[in-house]
């Protein structure tokens, strides 16, 4: 699955509420334990945007009696999350790096220093950066095309599975209600 995926088992109250799992790899900068949802929570938890990918990590709740369908959905969501994280973290990091290189090379070509009198970094204005933006977009065009296609497929599959799971759960609840009503 994801490189550096962290699955955390939460034991509380004899595992009555299930556990949590996530495949989000934060990039290795975080020291110490990641966020743990409180005991007894039966829902997924969503966090602040990741610094590199700007995506919000989700920690998925694993219900105690997870059906195969639910498991398939959860694993697909985790895998998609990790895949998205990898793509965007790489993309944003590459963008920053290449932008810095571009600025550096432009400033050098102009014979300027990279830091001004106050010691802060000099940036180019938008018109000068336009060449870089155009170039970056062109270079990554194919990559984005493939990503888009895969993203749409995953998104549709996840949503479809969510629909199936919701339907099954609704039917189960309805059945339970009618048997309860029948028993009374």
């Amino acid at each position, binding site marked *: 699955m994801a490189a550096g995926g962290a699955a955390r088992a939460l034991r509380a109250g004899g595992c009555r509420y299930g556990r949590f799992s996530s495949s989000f790899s934060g990039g290795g*900068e975080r020291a110490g334990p990641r966020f743990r949802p409180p005991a007894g*929570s039966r829902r997924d938890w*969503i966090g602040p945007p990741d610094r590199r990918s*700007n995506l919000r990590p989700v920690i998925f709740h694993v219900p105690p009696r997870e059906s195969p369908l639910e498991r398939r959905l959860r694993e697909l969501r985790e895998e998609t999350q990790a895949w998205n994280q990898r793509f965007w973290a790489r993309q*944003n990091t590459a*963008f920053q790096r290449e932008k810095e290189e571009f600025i550096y090379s432009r400033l050098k070509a102009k014979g300027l220093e990279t830091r001004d009198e106050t010691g802060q970094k000099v940036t180019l204005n938008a018109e000068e950066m*336009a060449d870089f933006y155009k170039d970056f*977009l*062109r270079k*990554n065009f194919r990559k984005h095309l493939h990503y888009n296609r895969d993203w749409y497929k995953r998104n549709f599959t996840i949503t479809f599975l969510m629909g199936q799971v919701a339907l099954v759960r609704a039917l189960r609840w309805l059945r339970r209600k009618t048997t309860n009503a029948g028993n009374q």
Partner: protein
Amino acid sequence: MSAARCCSPPQALAGIFVWHLKKTGIRQVPCQFVHLCRAPNDRLITFQYFNFLRRMYVTQYNKDLSQRVKPKSDSVVSPFRESQLDQERKVIHKITPISPVHQPLSELREIKSAAEIGDPATPLAAKSKEEGQWREMKLRLDDLPGILARLSKIKLTALVVSTASAGFAMAPVPFDLPCFLLASLGTGLASCAANSINQFFEVPFDSNMNRTKNRPLVRGQISPLLAVCFAASCGVPGIALLTMGVNPLTGALGAFNIFLYTCCYTPMKRMSIANTWVGAVVGAIPPVMGWTAATGSLDAGALLLGGILYSWQFPHFNALSWGLREDYSRGGYCMMSVTHPALCRRVALRHCVALIGLCTVAPILDITTWTFPIISLPLNLYISYLGFRFYREADRSSSRKLFFCSLWHLPLLLLVMFSCKKSLLEKEEQGDALSGSHGRAMEIRLP
């Protein structure tokens, strides 16, 4: 119906209604295919409001790649700092990927100095702060209306409905209030559906763009399944309402527009710059729908109104996209402003000038009197002048001027058009005078 019932009272009513709609439209920031930050709901259109809008857009020009988390109770979308407006200020930006430099406005006071340095006060404080930013993904019913409003881009929808109302009002038939209301409602529902699907498709991209990173799906406030269900529950009744309550032509146009926006424009944004033209058509269809709702037929007047909206989209969007080039480039959006900047400016100017021509055609088609091109000429000349400045100077300030001009230009133009509308009474008199050679004046209204 008697000639005395010459539409003036219902026209006035429609005018007030449309003006009111447009006024509410003005408060919000328009454009169907431009993702915009929200503005607070209850601002009046004042100089302060324009300043606020300016600040909102300027902050989007920040080269800020980090994100901030907002507490769930926050209703203001765009966190911005007064001190960080100017892009020309060539300082401060740490061009390192990691540092979360900026903070939401509500936490600004506590963490401002630490934020500017870029390091949290202590690692422990940062960690606990981060842990406090995790949210349970539970849908709270009292939050639901707000979430759905943001999901459906309610302000943009309001503007779309107001352009449709303008189309309805301009149609040369007696004003029919029930039909008008049904058409407006149907258009609004269709627009909600289209916007929701658009957000459903674009979650990871929206996360990475400053302007869109606080949308409900990005923040996990609503699940994708619920978003799709909401879209279906808006779209199906909306189109059904248009088809059965108004007429099939309007329903077909509405369905086509939803398809065009969700299945053509949204994917195309990442494939080709032609998306801008498709998006312009998407924006042009609502007034056509309004017209067909009133008259039941697609005639020259409808196409002219659509043409005016179509042309308007270009200066509006191209000027806006000029300042978002970095986000588009990083996010992989194929926009003219990034790949073909000269074309971007040329097209904007071209369509500003085209507006002048289109407004001149209106009296020829008997939609308005000849006062319309005369009165609208200063408006169109001004926007063309700004378009020309943008074409020549190609910088942030000229793009912003053009964009903000487009925001008030369209409502004003539609209002002037409506006030110069050729009344049915005049047309009937003309028709009598020319004894039947003026077939165009008598539009046949289908039941």
